[in-house]
């Protein structure tokens, strides 16, 4: 009975806070049970349009980022006051205290204006992480929970100047988990020490949001940085775009194709690896990677396909990432030349 009253009290705090103007982040909403209907219930942003992060919500950047149909992405970390995230090891993820949140808004520049389509939140509750997708309204004044996801028609101009018309897919709650899953539990995947930009690490440290780091933390390179070695760029690209599922604990574990940055076995990276459950995704080719022959590699075939059932990744991509495909193609082509 006491628990019940405590829960009501918690709810009431959340309620009172959300009714007030210009309120801080609603800690109680982050940690209580349930799925708030509106993004504004959390108080992550000062403005209704979701551009100005509230106190304690910090914008951060990654060295290498996931391709999502050329969407612009804005990433924020929130750690409850007085607490800190901990870096477990150089490669690993940050361990966030309960009450933390990772917030990621997706948008495009449409008709010369920046517009947000969706904001995904990852909430760290006592019973684990919860991933929820919120979809912005046409007026850009509120984002509403859409557990089942949705599709939004979008026209935008890609970095090469080409006009694109796509059916942008907001993932459903379960699809969030497909990538954010380790051994069946939801976890954040982007903010690893090695993948946070130098500036972002500095910011988290100076704000006391992250406990001081010890030891070396060699960063993953930016795959778009042509000055870096081809091999490490390609592996960085695979790590951030594919390895969330393609690792030993991820949702593609049964494939035997493991694309994490630290994977050392050539066959598990795909070199000379035959497909297992690829079906028509194999494209008629024998190996995930045929060294020297990108055009005969299943990995390239799936990266360049737009057909569901063939296209990889399975979610979050309705366009071919031309620059990424060129990078991997070059990497595979070079493999044959030693």
């Amino acid at each position, binding site marked *: 009975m006491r628990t019940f009253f405590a829960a009501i009290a918690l709810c009431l705090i959340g309620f009172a806070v959300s009714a007030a103007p210009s309120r801080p982040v609603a800690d109680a909403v982050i940690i209580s049970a349930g799925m708030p209907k509106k993004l504004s219930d959390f108080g992550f942003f000062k403005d209704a349009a979701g551009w100005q992060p509230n106190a304690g919500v910090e914008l951060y950047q990654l060295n290498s980022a996931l391709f999502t149909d050329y969407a612009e992405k804005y990433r924020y970390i929130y750690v409850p006051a007085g607490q800190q995230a901990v870096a477990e090891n150089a490669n690993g993820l940050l361990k966030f205290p309960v009450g933390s949140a990772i917030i990621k808004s997706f948008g495009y520049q449409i008709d010369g204006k920046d517009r947000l389509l969706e904001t995904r939140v990852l909430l760290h509750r006592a019973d684990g992480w919860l991933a929820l997708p919120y979809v912005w309204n046409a007026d850009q004044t509120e984002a509403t929970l859409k557990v089942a996801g949705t599709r939004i028609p979008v026209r935008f101009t890609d970095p090469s100047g080409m006009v694109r018309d796509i059916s942008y897919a907001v993932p459903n709650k379960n699809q969030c988990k497909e990538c954010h899953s380790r051994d069946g539990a939801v976890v954040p995947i982007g903010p690893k020490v090695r993948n946070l930009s130098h500036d972002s690490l500095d910011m988290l440290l100076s704000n006391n949001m992250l406990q001081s780091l010890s030891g070396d933390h060699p960063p993953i390179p930016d795959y778009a940085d042509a000055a870096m070695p081809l091999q490490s760029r390609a592996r960085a690209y695979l790590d951030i775009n594919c390895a969330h599922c393609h690792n030993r604990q991820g*949702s593609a*574990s049964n494939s035997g194709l493991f694309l994490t940055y630290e994977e050392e076995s050539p066959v598990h990276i795909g070199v000379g690896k035959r497909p297992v459950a690829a*079906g028509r995704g194999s494209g008629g080719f024998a190996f995930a990677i045929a060294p020297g022959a990108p055009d005969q590699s299943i990995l390239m075939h799936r990266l360049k396909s737009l057909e569901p059932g063939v296209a990889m990744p399975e979610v979050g991509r309705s366009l071919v990432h031309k620059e990424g495909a060129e990078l991997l193609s070059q990497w595979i082509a070079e493999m044959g030349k030693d």
Partner: protein
Amino acid sequence: MIRTLLAATALCCTMPALAKTIAVEAGADAQERLQEALILAEPGDVVELGAGRFELTDGLSLDVDNVVVRGAGMDKSILSFAGQLGAGEGLLVTSDDVVLRDFAVEDSKGDGIKSKGADRIVYHAIRVEWTGGPKASNGAYGIYPVEASDVLVQDSVVRGASDAGIYVGQSKNIIVRRNTAIENVAGIEIENSFDAEVTENLVTGNTGGILVFDLPNLPQMGGHNVLVARNAIIDNNTDNFAPEGNIVASVPAGTGVMVMANRNVQVVENAMINNGTTNVMVVAYTQSFDDANYDPTPREVYIAGNVYGRAGFAPDFEGGKQLAAAFGGALPGIVYDGLGRDLIVNDAVPVLSLGLTKVGQSPTEAQPSLYKQDGAGETVALSPIVLPASMEAALK
């Protein structure tokens, strides 16, 4: 104000709810309504699909334990993925203790229904079909449980898969019984799995009927203890329509049962009729591999008590025709590559051994002869597969 407060309280404070039935009807916005039901379901709930055609635009998924998804019948509640724009399968299940029953999945772009790491899953009276018949552009697997303990697939129908109709991979403790697999590349495939029973199925019109395989470079290897019993394996002569590169693309059309690189497999009391290459094939994995933990040969394969109809009249592998000619026009009902150890055949049919001496050797180098087994023709029966009582109870 009081009302608002109460509403807020109700929203925030989820009390344990009684199991409930969530009805979802076909019609407009089926994608969102059904996906939302699958997400908001709580353990113990039943998601009940109405009769009719659900036109879906994306893959569906279920990630809540102990949920039943039940339709009005495999020909009545139809999830159609003909207009699917994304995802690698029609329905994906990633939670435990799920029962799927009495509905159909049609024309998904990738796999039909995949369950990954979903323990104690039941597929009952499910139909997964590519309605255009066998085509390379069809999805790979119809019913596809993988990386699970305790799997039951029964009374289901699968048709048109460009890989396997029913595919159980990297799992343990499996029963596949009383299903119909028709016009798939592989009717039923048990791959890299331990302790399986494949019984009382009708397997017809596929390229290969029932395959028991083990493949290298996978998290679970060393497939063993598989019973293939009391199945009707008839007329599996459809040209192989698997996309190249897939391992099943190398299965000869006209294969009844194929055992590859597995240990302790028993093929007993089946009716195997009119399979053009042969009724039973026992072979090693022939492709190159780099995996020190993998054994590519067949071991302890026991064949007994089967009924053999016509077979071997159209062998679909290199040198097959010449071999058949040497055997009077047709290959025997059992073909063995000669590798591995302890093949025991207690049926009164000739067994052709290709007499290969090393793994990966071409059949054109065969030294064919009739196989003569060493030692006694007896073996120990496999222990029956026992599934948790909750799974059998779910079918009541």
